[in-house]
């Protein structure tokens, strides 16, 4: 009886480990595969069959894309928008959160609704495009910053955090004659560093990953972000896989060579790598952020 039970337990454990190993392979292997292809010689890659290890290891694809001015410009724009966008957003979101954490604010109920409503209803793609166009933001760097300036969900995270701070510190500062601006910047904001770091990581990853705004609101090549360049390469690759060689040759005036899968994978790696590098730090904060959101709802 006892040995039979332990066999069942043993099988149960084996099944668990097997299941989670499959999950691990399924989520990890694709990244390994693109690394392998990107490190393989571009011409050799055409033979296919690259699954576990590069046949002819070379950094040529990486050297090729780093010699390309389009990629450098894309990296620069992406870094700029990530840094400027994230810091401006943190600044504006935290100020809004502080204002809305004061329930005695005139029209508090109205303003809360005013912002929360934007989470559930919007004008949609076309009117938004028209408004952005009429504001003169087409082909402007600021189109990456302003339309996504405020994240209402992130604001709620910060507001919840501020509401949980002990009120006495603020009270005593108020008695000392500090106004709301001074209280916010000197007292509340330093206390909010953990939650601001959390939303900062959300925002930074969002900026790094976004392609859509660059894809539809900008035409100038110097305003294309890394992800938008990658979309272009992907589109060309998808089209190329449906075209004959002659058609491909006719279209090959692009500044980024598209015929090579290794180069496409190298660009993918370059776009992925920063995420993988900050990921260990992010993981902790993201889990925290998600828990906070879960508690809130």
């Amino acid at each position, binding site marked *: 009886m006892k040995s039979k039970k332990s066999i*069942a337990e043993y099988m149960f454990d084996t099944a668990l480990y097997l299941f989670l190993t499959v999950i691990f392979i399924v989520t990890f292997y694709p990244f390994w595969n693109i690394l392998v292809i990107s490190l393989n010689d571009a011409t050799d890659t055409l033979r296919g069959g690259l699954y576990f290890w590069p046949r002819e290891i070379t950094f040529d694809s990486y050297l090729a894309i780093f010699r390309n001015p389009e990629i450098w410009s894309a990296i620069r724009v992406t870094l700029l928008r990530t840094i400027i966008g994230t810091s401006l957003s943190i600044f504006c979101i935290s100020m809004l959160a502080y204002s809305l954490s004061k329930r005695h604010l005139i029209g508090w109920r109205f303003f809360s609704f005013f*912002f929360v409503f934007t989470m559930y209803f919007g004008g949609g793609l076309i*009117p*938004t495009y028209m408004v952005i166009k009429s504001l003169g933001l087409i082909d402007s760097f600021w189109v990456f910053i302003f339309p996504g300036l405020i994240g209402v969900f992130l604001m709620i995270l910060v507001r919840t955090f501020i509401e949980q701070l002990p009120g006495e510190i603020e009270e005593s500062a108020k008695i000392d004659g500090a106004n*709301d601006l001074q209280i916010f910047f000197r007292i509340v904001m330093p206390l909010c560093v953990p939650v601001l770091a959390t939303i900062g990581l959300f925002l930074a990853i969002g900026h790094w990953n976004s392609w859509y705004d660059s894809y539809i609101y900008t035409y100038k090549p110097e305003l294309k972000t890394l992800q938008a360049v*990658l979309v272009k390469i992907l589109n060309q690759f998808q089209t190329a896989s449906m075209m004959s060689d002659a058609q491909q040759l006719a279209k090959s005036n692009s500044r980024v060579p598209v015929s090579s899968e290794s180069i496409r994978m190298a660009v993918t790696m370059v776009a992925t790598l920063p995420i993988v590098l900050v990921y260990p730090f992010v993981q902790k904060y993201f889990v925290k952020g998600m828990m906070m959101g879960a508690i809130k709802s």
Partner: protein
Amino acid sequence: MQTNMNVHDGRELTIPRRKLWTVFKEQKYLFLMMLPALIWALLFAYTPMVGLYMSFVNYQPNLGGFWTTLFHSEFVGFDWFEYFFTNGDFLIVLRNTLASTLITLCFSFPMPILIAIAINEIKSVRFKKTVQTASYLPYFISWVIAANIIVTLLSSDGAINAILKFFHITDESILFLQNGKYFWWIVAIGNTWKDMGYSSIMYLAAISAINPELYEAAKVDGANRFKQIRYITLPHLKPTIVILLILALGGILNAGFDQHFLLGNELTKDYSDVLSTYSFRYGIQNGMFSYASAVGMFSSVVAFIIVCIVNFTAKKVNGQSLF
């Protein structure tokens, strides 16, 4: 009425009219801090809502500025909506949207639950951490990168075809992305791949809140681990499962623009066209602005109604609002 500025019970205070200006002056810095966000909401959230008026006119973009053109365009009422519902595209687009979200739900809903339960049962901390780290990663990459990876894995000499050939499931490479019948499944599996690890966090949080004494008691009573999952873990997860299922059902019309736009192509258009990509194609690419706006408006109004229903249901089930 008395005002008491120290009350923090969450209710708005009624302030006598003559004092309003004084209070506003006291709160001027709070309003100043709200100002950037206020301008943002007006410009980028509420102005486009006003712009939805273009769904009811025949907007021709060549007449000048957006607003002048908009309010001088010919009013056509619900003609664009009628055109959408009657021209045959509606049923195809709606079918694709629902197929994509529902097939996604079949995979992406149970997977996080299974992962969370399995991770909870594993004793080796190192193994647990490794699996968790790998499984969260796809969530943080963009759909552009994910699409690039998927295209590579599914290409004719990619890893998936290699596996299928190895097990003799197929002898010829399957052209997954050139054939519409695979499209919904590719998107569903891609969605699941991207989100399953990260979504399991919610369930892991719920599991960690279960009192360990329950498991001890069950062990004493002779329950094996399978029975412990069946009679302790799952019942405790039920509220979380119900709420997340309701939320997932709330997104049933929101098939996600990125994955359909990036993975779809001319050959699979009949299967990859969902409400958002359809609206994009007609508006941004074909210049039928009013029609595209009407399609977008249809989906956001229906989505909003669904969200309200979802919120109401969640309130009934859980005793609390999601808003």
